[in-house]
């Protein structure tokens, strides 16, 4: 098949796997996605984030000072097409498709044309690459930007590559660590000056707070480092981070282990001729090992690209019976994964994605004007952001009102004690099945497994 046709086919498959039913899986936006979406909406409408800070260089959000690039890129999307799950996730999905193409040109340059095609093909279908492209993960945008800078430096456009690497510090925290090896590699004075200036700006506008909150000790740092090469993590178990799991899958398919091992052996034997790939593999886990959590893949997405290139190298060198069975095995695994993501994940892991706010908002939106107050009881942290997101609450109004915890407008987030609360007038209550009576409920929601998840009660409106 013609190479152009092949790469276009790969890109189309990659796009389909990333864009299809983007609102259905993951089953709902989590709080970080909601925050990014709403801040993008706020930026589009007012030029300020939810706190009213004009053109911020870091989004204060939940005091985690999110890098703002994702929100800025998403702002026109939500501004033009409306604030919803698809528009919030679209930039990540498109970055995922771009990464497929970038992996092709990078692997082609690093190893060879055929390896480039295989690496792009893998990138299009691998569990980790699909998963992180289907959520509004800043890290996935950062990966595409990182790959762009690598490609530019590889093709001797060092200055541009270094500036892009500098801009990347505004897309994800890990990019602040990846920046330095790229500067050493790029070796352009002006590039270093610009990138370091961008790094300094990013750190002084909130990045430092995040940096110093990392933890762990040096002995554990060594152990954590190798967990990013552990076949059990890569091919079977995946991560313990609940909102990054697809049950039954690691970051890669089980069949890839054979090719990965061959690729690793090849790299160890030929590292002198492949120093860039070797350094990439060795340095990429660094952003994750200085933090407390064990095996948190989202922090080191560039590492997974390096592993993907290793698998591609191995696949090209596969021989014997493995070469024969690997294609049908891969197709079946892809089908398993597709069903796991599109059907099983929204059904079985909805709880890890803070499901349930959208369904409630759909019920209360038409009647909201009738009530003076809305009391919302929820076990979720940062509940206000979901209400803002799904209600598309006007940012200019939200920014104006003084902040009192999570409460805003007529919304109050607290526990409900129905024997007392029932006496409040003109109030809408949203709570769990143990907080509100079934009788007289004006609405109820059921989770994907059929259990009642929320009840909505209203106290009489005064004339």
């Amino acid at each position, binding site marked *: 098949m013609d190479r152009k046709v092949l790469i276009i086919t790969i890109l189309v498959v990659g796009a389909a796997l990333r864009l299809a039913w983007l609102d259905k899986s993951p089953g709902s936006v989590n709080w970080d996605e909601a925050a990014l979406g709403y801040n993008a909406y706020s930026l589009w409408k007012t030029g300020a984030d939810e706190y009213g800070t004009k053109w911020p260089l870091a989004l204060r959000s939940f005091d985690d000072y999110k890098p703002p690039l994702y929100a800025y890129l998403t702002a026109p999307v939500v501004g033009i097409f409306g604030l919803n799950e698809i528009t919030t996730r679209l930039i990540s999905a498109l970055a995922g498709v771009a990464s497929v193409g970038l992996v092709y040109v990078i692997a082609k340059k690093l190893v060879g044309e055929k390896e480039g095609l295989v690496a792009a093909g893998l990138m299009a279908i691998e569990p980790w690459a699909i998963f992180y492209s289907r959520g509004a993960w800043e890290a996935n945008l950062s990966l595409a930007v990182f790959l762009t800078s690598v490609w530019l430096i590889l093709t001797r456009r060092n200055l541009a590559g270094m500036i892009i690497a500098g801009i990347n510090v505004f897309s994800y925290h890990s990019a602040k660590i990846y920046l330095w090896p790229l500067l050493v590699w790029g070796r352009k004075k002006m590039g270093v000056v610009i990138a370091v200036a961008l790094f300094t700006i990013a750190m002084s506008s909130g990045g430092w707070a995040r940096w110093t909150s990392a933890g762990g000790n040096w*002995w*554990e740092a*060594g*152990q*954590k*480092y*190798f*967990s990013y*090469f*552990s*076949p*059990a*993590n890569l*091919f*079977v*178990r*995946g*991560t*313990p981070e609940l909102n990054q799991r697809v049950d039954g899958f690691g970051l890669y398919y*089980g*069949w890839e*282990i054979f090719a990965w091992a061959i690729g*690793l*052996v090849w790299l*160890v*034997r030929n590292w002198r001729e492949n120093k860039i790939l070797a350094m990439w593999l060795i340095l990429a886990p660094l952003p994750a090992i200085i933090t407390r*959590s*064990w*095996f948190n893949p989202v922090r080191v997405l560039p590492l997974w690209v390096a592993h993907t290139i290793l698998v591609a190298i191995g696949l090209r060198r596969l021989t014997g019976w493995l070469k024969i069975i690997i294609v049908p095995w891969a197709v*079946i695994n892809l*089908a*398993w994964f597709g*069903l796991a993501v599109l*059907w*099983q994940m*929204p*059904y*079985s892991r909805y709880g890890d994605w803070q499901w349930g706010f959208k369904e409630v908002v759909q019920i209360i939106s038409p009647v909201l004007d009738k009530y003076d107050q809305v009391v919302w009881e929820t076990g979720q942290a940062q509940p206000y952001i979901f209400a803002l997101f799904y209600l598309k609450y006007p940012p200019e109004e939200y920014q104006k009102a003084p902040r009192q915890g999570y409460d805003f407008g007529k919304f109050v987030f607290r526990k409900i004690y129905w024997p007392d609360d029932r006496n409040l007038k003109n109030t809408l209550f949203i709570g769990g099945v143990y907080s509100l009576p079934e009788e007289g409920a004006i609405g109820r929601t059921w989770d*994907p*497994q059929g259990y009642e998840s929320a009840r909505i009660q209203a106290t009489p409106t005064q004339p």
Partner: protein
Amino acid sequence: MWPGIVAAGVLVVKLGLMLGKPLGVSVAMAETFGNLGWGEMQIRVWGWLVQVVIVILLAKKTRSGWVALIAAANPWLNTISMWHVWETTALAGAVGVWAAKHTWQKAIGAVVVVLALAATWTNLSKISSDNLAAKLNWNFLGQQVDEIQKINFQATQKNYMLPAIVRKILYNKPGLALNTIVQRSVALMDFEQWTAPQAAWTATGLSGLPPKGLLPLIYYWDIPLLIFTIVIFDKKRVKWWLVGGWLGGIFLDKKFFTVGGVLFIPAIVVLVAEAVKRLDKRLVLVLYLAGTGFFFKEMFFNQLKWQYSDVYLYRQTAMWLKNNLAADARAAVTNKFGPMDVMLKFYKVLPNSNIEVGEFTPSPGKVYIGLPKEMRGIPEDKIVTRIEADDELVYGYGKGLWIAKY
């Protein structure tokens, strides 16, 4: 020469720690060695001697002092020679077969393997009940296939089911069996289980590993050394150890990998030694002495941090009864958290007609040793000793063990 001397030093230090800081024994060891009339120190010394034999045989076979050092410092070998002495004895027999030059020597090694496995057969049968064969059972695979399809159907809110032919291709027993074997094999290469089973429990717990009871099998810097040496070194010398370790490892459940994968140890030791002899000698010495020091500190001085407290509580109970129970006093000791009678017999506290083992309802005139909740009804001032421990061995019964003179 000097790596061998350092290895001897490490082994002597371990012997000193074992004798100076007894940690108790597991129920499985008490059951099997108790029948022979052995005490804790005899078991420990036997385990230590077996480790020494393994170290010597491996060094002799490979003619390398480095192998001796790596074997003496290896956490896995140090762990099993303390806590799985029969399995270590069997390993020594297998290494003997490998290292022997004469047929009669090989025969002795084989006999040792058979006898040691026979001695611990009851324990091995217990831990091997949930084995690979059970997972590959045709009926079990059928149930799994049905379960996946059921979840798929429910996930579509019971609106859609894939065509039968597609389901047959995607979800079938041979495919699931192949997937199970591959997954179990890959899951053995679990660097977190190998180097930090407790610190990384948030990750290893996903594979069904317990939060306590497992020690590291290798040091984390052994991982790149193993990768390096597997690539450049002639693996044929240790091929059968790798195959044996893999078969044992995938046969038993992952949480028993310390025992199931025991045949990996000679391969790991030889491969790591092959790599370290290419490194700077001072670096190697610092790494392995620091690593061994850290490991021994954990094993001997942080017992309650890495091990469930039952082993400790059995020993403390036995020691207290031996040292404090008056000749004419009567005592009731709980068996709520495990076979206390077996353990007290092992520690030679039983048989004693004044001591009853079992659940009790406190009434005045006895010494009671039990879990905190079992002491309900006994006045606070009658509690003479509280043995502190981290784990609540029986849900809702409190941590540690209390002793009351009522």
